[in-house]
């Protein structure tokens, strides 16, 4: 087991370096540097451009800049945002809880709805319910997030007035951030109205962000269940005279869950990617919206640091899932 863990952890290092290098390079390949982006229609005298580039260290060779950067990263320094002049790590940590809160709820939504839907579809294979679930999940999977979000806003917020259009909390409330998780902070402050408002604000973005994972979880659960239901031991269990529910709930589901857990883990990447669009539509103050602005402003350190931290999160979760998979499925451990 230890050996397995060590092998997996050692694989993380090249991925980490690769992500750092790629982000560093890609944002620099995008035309226009942070100064040119600021300048506007007015233009800038070449001397002043040079001076400002020098002050930001942009006049040095790419290799020099990269080594400087990676040196900083290894000592835990992600640099200062070129725009706000605040440490990138501080900005990220201020905003990340909002993203986690949204992503976690979206994942919860996807699992709570997707898992039972997949199970029932598998058990009632070929029924209307099965076709319905599969049809809806294919639609959900293909739905452009941006369009889906606006559609829900127009219907539920503008049309029916059931949910707020965007934001994280009604403007009437002001809750001092403690953990950064609005649901927890409002409870800590004892503001139940604010808690309710935060929950209200979460509904639409949660559904929008959870749609793709929901589709994936439902489909994956269904196919895993179908596979397991065809196994000999299920027939044996049934032959023993066990109740149908017990066979499905105990014998089939436990085995079918193994691939589903992996898929859920892999969805973390999808969630954080989808959060970028979802946060922009719902004016959600998380890291996704912040990254978009960093790209627009060519805020190199913010973007590099943000992508690196998100990538690290995804890697950490994947690693955890892999390890968990090892625990759930002993065959994996022993085969290595």
């Amino acid at each position, binding site marked *: 087991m230890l050996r397995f863990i060590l092998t997996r952890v050692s694989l993380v290092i090249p991925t980490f370096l690769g992500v750092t290098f790629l982000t560093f390079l890609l944002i620099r390949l995008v035309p226009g540097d942070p100064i040119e982006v600021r300048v506007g*229609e007015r*233009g800038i005298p070449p001397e002043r451009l040079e001076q400002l580039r020098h002050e930001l260290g942009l006049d040095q060779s790419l290799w020099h800049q990269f080594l400087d950067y990676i040196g900083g990263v290894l000592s835990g320094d992600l640099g200062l945002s070129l725009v706000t002049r605040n440490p990138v790590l501080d900005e990220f940590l201020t905003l990340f809880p909002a993203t986690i809160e949204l992503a976690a709820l979206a994942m919860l939504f996807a699992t709570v709805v997707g898992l039972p839907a997949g199970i029932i579809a598998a058990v009632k294979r070929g029924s209307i319910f099965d076709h319905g679930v599969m049809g809806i999940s294919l639609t959900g999977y293909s739905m452009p997030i941006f369009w889906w979000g606006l559609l829900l806003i127009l219907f539920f917020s503008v049309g029916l007035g059931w949910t707020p259009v965007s934001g994280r909390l*009604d*403007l009437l409330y002001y809750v001092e951030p403690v953990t950064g998780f609005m649901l927890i902070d409002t409870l800590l402050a004892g503001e139940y*109205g*604010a808690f309710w408002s935060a929950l209200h604000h979460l509904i639409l973005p949660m559904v929008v962000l959870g749609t793709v994972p929901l589709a994936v979880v439902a489909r994956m659960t269904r196919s895993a269940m179908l596979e397991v239901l065809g196994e000999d031991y299920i027939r044996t269990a049934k032959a023993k005279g066990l109740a149908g529910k017990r066979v499905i709930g105990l014998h089939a589901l436990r085995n079918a869950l193994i691939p589903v857990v992996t898929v859920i883990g892999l969805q973390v990447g999808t969630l954080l990617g989808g959060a970028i669009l979802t946060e922009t*539509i719902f004016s959600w103050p998380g890291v996704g919206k912040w990254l978009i*602005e960093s790209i627009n402003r060519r805020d190199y350190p913010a973007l590099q640091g943000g992508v690196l931290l998100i990538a690290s999160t995804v890697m950490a979760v994947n690693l955890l899932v892999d390890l968990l998979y090892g625990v759930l499925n002993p065959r994996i451990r022993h085969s290595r």
Partner: protein
Amino acid sequence: MKRILLGAGLGVAAALALAAPAQAAKTLVYCSEGSPENFNPMVNTTGTSFDVSLPVYNNLVEFERGGTKVVPGLAESWEISDDGLTYTFHLRKGAKWHSTGDFKPTRDANADDVLWSFNRQWKNDHPFHKVSGGAYDYFNDMAMPTLLKSIDKVDDYTVKFVLNKVEAPFLANLAMPFAPIQSAEYAEFLQKKNQIDKMDQVPVGTGPFQFVAYQKDAVIRYKAFDQFWGGKAPIDNLVFAITPDAAVRYAKLKAGECNIVPYPNPADLETMKKDTSITLMEQEGLNVGYLAFNTTKKPFDDVRVRRALNMAIDKKAIVDAVYQGAGVPAKNPIPPTMWSYNKDIEDYPFDPERAKKLLAEAGYPDGFETDLWAMPVQRPYNPNAKRMAEMMQADLAKVGVKAKVVQYEWGEYRKRLQAGEHLMGMMGWTGDNGDPDNFLNVLLGCESARIGGSNVAKWCNKEFDDLTVQAKRTTDIAARTKLYEQAQVIFKEEAPWFPVAHSVVHMAVSKNVVDYRVEAFGIHRFYGVDLKQ
């Protein structure tokens, strides 16, 4: 289930209980389009960042609400010496500073604050010069470092600015957002606490609204400052709800989650006009969109070619199709609302036959091949450059000119255009200070025709330049008006541009908003706005 319902009921009850006192206060919600860099307009260049600082600070002089006239700010009155070189400002007495959680001001705004603020931008050795990056773009762009000779305190409430040369737009420049007065006492307080970065994060000013809190990327809160020298604002709280997507801003306005919405989608304007639940306000913007001919390159070094192309393109069709009623055709480089606009000038007629003749005279009977640069982004003065380019392309083809549309990423586009790499390129401008110099000199003067300068026609006409420079060195408005009118005649004859349009700025507001004024400069201010209960 019962328990859940009970919980929900309690939640709603609690929300109502908490909401009750807040509702009595008038809260104006402005759905802003983006997050600010910080709260100091000295170091910023974007309208988004200016907007968040404007409620907090005062300048020495300011622009009147919704207009371009310069009115008193922290300076109650001022005198300009006869030689136009010395400006003496008399400061308002009793202008109170805001307080923060730990900072309590002990004195009113005075001459020390004015000196402190200007020196911060001007002097490298100022203790706060490097704070927040220390790039004072606008201060430099308005040539302040070369213009200023000295700034002196005469007494506690009198400050004297001495210039190196006469600069007629100087007063208007001081009204621009980049020149706010910050508190020297607050700065000293922060220095002692070793927190100088807070200067631009937790702003302290003398303005109508006091900063309360900024939740990054989400909400900015202000409250009306009771002791504001101009009288407390009619509203009690001002909130900026940051909402980057235009469609969502409109949805929020309709759902009653915000009162004022900037930058509506051009595609939504028709719907908004018909929407009875909101009001769509408009104001002629202080801007111009144009196509510049690179006058340093063949064939555009020949004035006959430039005139011919001015006659070859159907301006009205373009304005109708691209601006969809939100623009007026332009014949001069400055907009019609600006003083010294020469209304007697006649635009070139749309006349492809005469254009062909002129081209033949210039030695291009069969036309020629050229490029046509179109910006890749929507700008206030040009909602759709690509479409505009395609229409121009079609018109030009009819007189034998084959134009190839060229596009680059926006930053790259400007850089290359300002370097003069193009033959024909679209550009535009939004005024900074309401002074014609800010258009005629900045966009067409010889000084900005250099590589990297904002004169993208790279046009340097001695006669035109003499007129605008002379106008800048005179403080008499009547005399300046004559000079600028003359300059516009030369501009029309020499045709370095094909001026396209001046666009209209739109703001969508809810029905209960009273007396909001759309600003021509593209900034947004809320002092004086009220809400019907």
